[in-house]
């Protein structure tokens, strides 16, 4: 009797669970309401207007719905802009101002999007240090993400690759982190390039590591570096060996990792390699995935190894919510790039990749992304689906103004994806397509620190030591009033804030105004054009007052001008402005009104001048939810 009762009870309980599970999506506040939002980083309004006839789905979207320019943030940088989309706050609210912030005390640049805290308590056993409390990785951005607010109201949302969302904010929504997600080594992205070419003299390269290898009997052992072993006292870098066997005469090689072989011809990309970097041998390892490009076999081996991506099937860091979501995605669509920005602009800039090689890698990323997009589109039933595409932005950086046909191919692929979203949306789902900023040529690189030096605001300990040495190597802080780091930022060397700062707080505003006036008068020595279009003061530009990491002045360059790479990392070269000769030929870190984004929808847009911070409000309002504290936008509909 007791057995049969127990069985009956179990059956009833199981039925309740099943019915509950089946009904759970219908009982949300989202019942009947659906919205698809596609974030296309860097989609430019002028490029669209010049190519409507080649982009049939975007053209149909604007004719059947609407198309407007979308006001971007100050400065118009992706992490800043997408943080505004996430929170509905301006940068003064969410506190992100650049790809890099500077430590106010040391003036050293640091990543702006997340920070890592080591475990507070550890146990040392021999060479190992075992954590007794957990270390943390946390976002530096303030404000709540709009999908957290939707979650509070039981409205389901799936957020794929929202930038500046690493680690993925805790909530019950499905989310996968995007721009800002590090590689397994903990860097923003570090690729490795192996060669045994004796002519290759470089030891450092843009965003990567150059490694010279020995080749014996046609075999090279590539030591692929993984994360530092935080379980060891010496934090020794972990590594694995990838064996490359070159055919004696043909341009083909065999790659072997853990006994598994792959054969590649010269000019081919491998599929994903799965690697386990040992932390405690046989007990604990960190899982990563990477791709290999066999650039050349003869006469000298040249092999590119991508940054080690966090394996989505066994994530070593919190890249998704729930934590099982990335594994479920990998099970459905196969391994995929998890690093924040995967397009290999670094190797292209370093001259290691040709344009075609860059494009072949970039198209692989887009292909991975489209596979995941189609999967999510098919799964989407209710609530909100947000999907982010990086390809337009990263390709525009490398192709803008010179290779428009190649860039148009990328736009076309995204246009096709938008067509699929339009079909899925039909008449009952609102579809919004937006970009965070537009694009312009980057013809002339401005060395802001050199400008400040020539204007008497920055001094070197030896005036002859101008050059590309980074991190203010020769700056005399005792005689320096202002300095630049990042892509649009100038800081005052303020007494009591900067270590050894010399400008009293009372004098700060007057000096800033003097610098601003000089910037507005700043002419390009080559052609007399205005280098700077607008100068922004944070106190008057932002409504929020979360200004701990804010620059004291934002430089809004004219179209065609941008801060140099040297400026971003605190170098003081000889000239103030020079030609940008690098492969990175398009940019958007200029005056915000010169590089607006785009807003398209399958509905009419009522807002006259929609802004990025209006987007989360628009989404919340669609589901009947009001703005949270600190949000400053209005619905665009």
């Amino acid at each position: 009797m007791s057995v049969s009762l127990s069985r009956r009870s179990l059956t009833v309980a199981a039925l309740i669970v099943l019915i509950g599970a089946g009904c759970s999506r219908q009982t949300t506040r989202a019942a009947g309401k659906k919205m698809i939002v596609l974030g296309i980083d860097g989609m430019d309004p002028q490029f669209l207007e010049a190519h409507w006839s080649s982009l049939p789905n975007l053209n149909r979207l604007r004719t059947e719905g609407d198309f407007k320019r979308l006001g971007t943030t100050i400065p118009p940088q992706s992490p800043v802009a997408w943080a505004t989309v996430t929170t509905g706050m301006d940068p003064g609210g969410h506190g992100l101002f650049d790809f890099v912030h500077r430590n106010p005390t040391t003036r050293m640049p640091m990543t702006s999007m997340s920070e890592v805290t080591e475990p507070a308590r550890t146990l040392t056993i021999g060479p190992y240090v075992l954590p007794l409390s957990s270390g943390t990785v946390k976002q530096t951005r303030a404000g709540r993400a709009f999908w957290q607010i939707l979650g509070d109201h039981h409205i389901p949302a799936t957020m794929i690759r929202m930038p500046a969302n690493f680690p993925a904010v805790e909530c019950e929504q499905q989310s996968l982190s995007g721009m800002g997600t590090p590689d397994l080594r903990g860097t923003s992205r570090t690729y490795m390039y192996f060669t045994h070419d004796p002519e290759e003299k470089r030891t450092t390269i843009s965003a990567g590591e150059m490694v010279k290898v020995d080749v014996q009997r046609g075999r090279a052992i590539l030591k692929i570096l993984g994360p530092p072993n935080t379980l060891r006292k010496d934090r020794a870098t972990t590594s694995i060996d990838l064996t490359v066997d070159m055919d004696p005469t043909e341009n083909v090689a065999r790659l072997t990792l853990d006994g598994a072989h792959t054969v590649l011809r010269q000019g081919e990309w491998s599929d994903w390699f799965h690697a386990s970097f040992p932390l405690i041998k046989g007990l604990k390892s960190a899982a990563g995935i990477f791709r290999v490009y066999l650039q050349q076999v003869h006469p000298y081996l040249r092999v590119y190894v991508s940054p080690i991506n966090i394996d989505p099937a066994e994530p070593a860091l919190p890249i998704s919510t729930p934590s099982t979501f990335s594994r479920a995605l990998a099970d459905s669509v196969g391994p995929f790039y998890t690093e924040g920005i995967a397009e290999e602009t670094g190797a292209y800039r370093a001259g290691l990749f040709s344009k075609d090689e860059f494009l072949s890698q970039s198209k692989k990323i887009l292909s991975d992304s489209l596979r995941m997009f189609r999967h999510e589109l098919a799964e989407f039933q209710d609530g909100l689906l947000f999907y982010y595409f990086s390809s337009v932005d990263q390709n525009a950086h490398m192709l803008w103004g010179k290779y428009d046909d190649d860039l148009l191919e990328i736009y076309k692929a995204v246009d096709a994806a938008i067509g699929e979203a339009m079909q899925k949306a039909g008449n009952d789902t609102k579809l919004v397509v937006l970009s965070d900023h537009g694009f312009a040529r980057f013809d002339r690189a401005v060395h802001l620190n050199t400008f400040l030096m020539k204007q008497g605001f920055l001094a070197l300990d030896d005036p002859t030591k101008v050059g590309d040495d980074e991190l203010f190597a020769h700056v005399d802080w005792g005689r320096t009033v202002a300095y630049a780091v990042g892509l649009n930022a100038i800081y005052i060397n303020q007494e009591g804030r900067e270590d050894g700062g010399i400008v009293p707080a009372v004098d700060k505003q007057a000096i800033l105004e003097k610098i601003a006036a000089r910037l507005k008068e700043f002419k390009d020595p080559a052609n007399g054009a205005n280098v700077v279009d607008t100068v922004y003061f944070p106190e008057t530009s932002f409504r929020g007052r979360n200004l701990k990491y804010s620059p004291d002045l934002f430089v809004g360059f004219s179209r065609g001008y941008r801060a140099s790479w040297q400026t971003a990392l605190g170098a003081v070269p000889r000239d103030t402005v020079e030609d940008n000769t690098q492969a990175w030929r398009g940019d958007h870190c200029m005056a915000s009104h010169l590089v607006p984004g785009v807003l398209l929808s399958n509905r009419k847009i009522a807002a006259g001048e929609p802004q990025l911070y209006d987007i989360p409000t628009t989404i919340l309002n669609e589901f009947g939810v009001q703005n949270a504290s600190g949000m400053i936008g209005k619905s665009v509909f």
Partner: protein
Amino acid sequence: MDLFNSAIDGLLKLFFGAFSWAPPLLGLAVLSALAGVAMLWVFGKTSNQARMKQVKKKVYASLLELRVFADEPAVTWRAQKSLFAANLRYMGLALKPALWMIVPMGVLILHMESFYARAPLAVGREAIVTMSMAPGWDARAAAPSLTAPGGIEVAGPPVRVEAEREISWRIVPRADISGQLVFRVGGQEIAKRIEAGSRQRFVPGKSVRSMLAALWDPSEPRIASDAVEWIDITCPEASVDALGVRLNWLVWFFGISVIAALLLKKRMGVVI
């Protein structure tokens, strides 16, 4: 050796064929149960059943002692020593039947691997074929030619790996096929069976030349050419699925054979 291996494979193919209509687990379950019964019979015939009975009684007695006199350390200590000794004696008694069983079971498992351990190549997914060459091979000499059956694409030239005396080809199955790769090595033809598709079937492992190696890789006739040591195709690992649980076939095999032996030990009068 080839005759012996092909005879066993032939019997297993007959058995596998008889269950081709059913999920792979059914045939595996029947074979495992039969193996369990056979092991039980061998155990009964080759072990000292009377001594085993005595030792097992000693084990039970020691366990009882441990439970009853849990609060008397001296007795508990003595019981643990006794239990340890009885276990050692039990293992000693089990050694002889284990030695009797190890060879036939090993042969059976090695042959069953072709049916349950390896899956056919997935259509559309690249695979690597590797040929190991005999000592004295010149890596700069022309590589053997490879002719693939229809449905298998040879994707690019081979890689001659001097450091390992190996040659690797990349192939891509384009259709569900059962066929043969044919290598031409120094005027001699060597065939290697290849399977691609989704249906589980007989998938041979490494083809080898030496007789010793053929003990471990018995699924194909030995290679006749002196120039080649072995040929291997990287096949995916197979797993046996039942009610959504995917496990390695050996887990099912040992699980079912042990259960069969435990269920039938009384009926067959065997103490284990």
